[in-house]
């Protein structure tokens, strides 16, 4: 197994701003790089995202056809995280970003979710929502 990891813009040596748009464009560029330059088969690709990374991972899997999507400690959306941490009023002040709940129904590949029962930042309930959305 080989791992291809992409840094967020603005972190480490990669300059730029980690806006939703930039992060999603990078995710797509990385995927296309695997397909078009490294000639990986789509079915051999596992898209994996942890926490914030669940956003670009779910988005990417919603219009591609990888072998598997792995989400570790995923959230429903940024708004959902803020709502859990600071309440409904605060969440109304936050722009909706990385809406995994909205995108999950478009994911057709197999999905594996791992979540911690003791997760205080993103409650297990959010992972259960993502899991349940296609399993009703």
């Amino acid at each position, binding site marked *: *197994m*080989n*791992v291809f*990891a*992409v*840094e967020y813009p603005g972190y480490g*040596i*990669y300059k*730029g701003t980690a806006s939703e748009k930039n992060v999603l*464009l*990078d995710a797509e*560029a*990385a995927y296309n*790089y695997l397909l078009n*330059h*490294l000639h990986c088969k789509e*079915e*051999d*690709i*596992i898209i994996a995202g942890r*926490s914030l990374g669940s956003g670009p991972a779910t988005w990417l899997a919603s219009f591609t056809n990888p*072998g*598997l999507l*792995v989400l*570790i*400690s995923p959230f429903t959306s940024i708004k959902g995280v803020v709502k859990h941490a600071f309440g409904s009023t605060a969440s109304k002040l936050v722009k909706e970003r990385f809406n995994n709940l909205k995108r999950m129904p478009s*994911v*057709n*590949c*197999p*999905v*594996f*979710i*791992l*979540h*911690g*029962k*003791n*997760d*205080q*930042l*993103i409650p*297990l309930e959010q*992972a*259960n929502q993502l*899991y349940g959305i*296609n*399993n009703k």
Partner: protein
Amino acid sequence: MKGPKAISIAEEMDHASFDFLNDLIEPLKKFMADLKGPRLVTRRSRVLPSRIFRDIPVIEINDLK
């Protein structure tokens, strides 16, 4: 058609846990055993030529054993 979906709950894991591999690997292997897709097989990886795409440095990671 939707692919299969599974959720695994780690009893002790919190959001700051970075030692989740033990909680991840076995359930994931079990899930993937029934799929016709990728397999968690470790082998020495190719060394890729360094290149820049979309101004992103490509960092090569090898030997994930």
